[in-house]
């Protein structure tokens, strides 16, 4: 299994001189199985360039046949879809998978909105490829006989899935966008709305849900995890925004026996120079921890990791 990084930026694409090294495209990863089968995770703006590569290199071997998993439907994770050339070509088969919607709407209708008249010159129902949409719950599915995909609902302001792909003898996990669960019913007896029972329930629920995330990432050969903020930034003003502090991600990955950790979803304000510094600091910190050989790095467009 090989993972190729096509988009690593969070929230909004950030082209420009300050982001050339790590890249300004939003989330997209290509998972290439040993026999050439293709799984794509994320339809951020990075999927545009991936589509061009697939058309140039894979399409000549025959119609494309691929699975596209989106973690959630926030715009930065679906905005590249209308620019993904394979969707326009007859004969191509694309299976789109994503999470449930609170209104019970279909995944297809959520995707179609950004291709409706006001936003795009072509409607989703005019696409020529054979495209199907499947809603995934928290579950384990057999994508093929030899490829297992497990999903996990993450903590974010919209229903959002992490993916654990087991194939070719390796384990690849994505956990973004995600913020550690916390007790939303915390408080002290002095508070006007203090509820001791709710506080206890909340504590248990938060702990249990965080434990499930630990189990989900256990032993991953490669984990791509939301790491948008430093601990300082997170505590200062970003609690509840749905993203993780880097230090927490490092420690929980070490605890779960993750072998390679890729810190992802770079904040739009982060320049290449700043990401360089953060990477250096995190690598140094990881090296000091004797109990682990974990390899840590920032996600970067163009990176290829063989598992």
């Amino acid at each position, binding site marked *: 299994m090989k993972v190729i990084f096509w988009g690593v930026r969070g929230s909004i694409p950030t082209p420009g001189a300050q982001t050339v090294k790590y890249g300004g495209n939003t989330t997209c990863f290509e998972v290439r199985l040993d026999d050439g089968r293709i799984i794509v995770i994320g339809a951020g703006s990075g999927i545009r360039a991936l589509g061009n590569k697939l058309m140039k290199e894979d399409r000549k071997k025959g119609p494309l046949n691929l699975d596209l998993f989106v973690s959630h439907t926030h715009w930065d994770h679906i905005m590249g879809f209308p620019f993904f050339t394979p969707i326009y070509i007859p004969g191509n088969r694309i299976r789109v998978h994503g999470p449930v919607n609170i209104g019970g709407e279909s995944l297809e209708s959520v995707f179609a909105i950004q291709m409706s008249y006001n936003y795009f010159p072509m409607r989703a129902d005019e696409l020529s490829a054979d495209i199907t949409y499947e809603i995934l719950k928290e579950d384990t599915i057999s994508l093929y006989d030899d490829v297992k995909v497990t999903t996990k609902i993450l903590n974010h302001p919209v229903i959002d899935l992490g993916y654990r792909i087991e194939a070719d003898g390796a384990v690849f996990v994505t956990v973004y966008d995600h913020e550690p669960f916390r007790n939303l019913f915390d*408080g002290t007896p002095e508070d006007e709305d203090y509820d001791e029972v709710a506080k206890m*329930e909340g504590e248990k629920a938060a702990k249990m849900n965080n434990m499930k995330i630990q189990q989900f990432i256990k032993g991953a050969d490669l984990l791509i995890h939301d790491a948008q903020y430093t601990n300082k930034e997170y505590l200062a003003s970003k609690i*509840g925004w749905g993203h993780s502090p880097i230090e927490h991600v490092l420690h929980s990955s070490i605890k779960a026996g993750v072998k390679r950790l890729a810190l992802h979803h770079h904040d739009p304000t982060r320049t290449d120079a700043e990401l360089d510094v953060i990477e250096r600091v995190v690598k140094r910190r990881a090296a000091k921890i004797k109990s682990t050989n974990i390899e840590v790095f920032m996600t970067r467009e163009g990176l290829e990791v063989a598992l």
Partner: protein
Amino acid sequence: MENKDLIRLNRYIDTMPSLSITVAKILEVTKDPKVTAKDLNKVISLDPVLVGRVLKLVNSAYYGLSNKVTSLVNAIIMLGINTIKNLALSTAVLGNMRKNSSFKSLNIDGFWRHSIGVGVASKLIAKQIGIPMNQIEEYFIAGLLHDIGKIPLNEVFEEHYLKAIRLADFKKMQLHDMEKEIIGITHTEVGKMIAGKWRLSPETFECILHHHNHNEVPEQYYKIGTTVYIANIFCNLNQIGFSGDRYPKKIEGYLLSSIGLSDGYLDDIFDTISAEIEKASVFLQVAE
């Protein structure tokens, strides 16, 4: 009951709006960007439809849950404030749109007071008989939702339902017997449909289906089923709200002791229940 009527019922259930009583407060609370989980929990727990929709969402997104989620606190932490807020808002907006058309036969305020009353009574009884803290909320929810089947009946068969309520009153009979006679389906059967669609826990499911005939409740749910049964009759006898039953059966003597309640206990809780309903009613009033 004809197929087309069942279809109409199902269709209504699929887009059931929140009670008009809670709509204004939900709209107010969800407009606040700093809304807390506690605020949301408070307002949601006062609307049986909203409680059901939250539990439905969490139990359908999480296929692999070995135990259904029955706690609002748990659901709010799993789904997060923003998702819960938007779910409440979309349910309330539906309620806002249908403001004028709902509840022609059953008075909405009376129905709401009865539902909250049975929820609170169930919670108080549960505490009294020593139910573990982490299960108390489930007793409240089962009590709150026990009559949920009346909402679609009232809306979809308005004239027939009015007839059923009037006849039950005139003949001094139980409403659900008249429902069967005049409409062909009871509110417990409709409640069962809702509980299935909302993927409610087996306990809540049984309480909704059997809150008029507790003998049918499976043995493992005896305590919660009997609690809601007793709470419902108590509220009807003492006219805490009104849900169409003016002539409930008496509570059989052995039932109280069978769950560990003393005979005199029920005499003491009327004031507490009334106070909680008044508190909730004040809370739901929005600043002008």
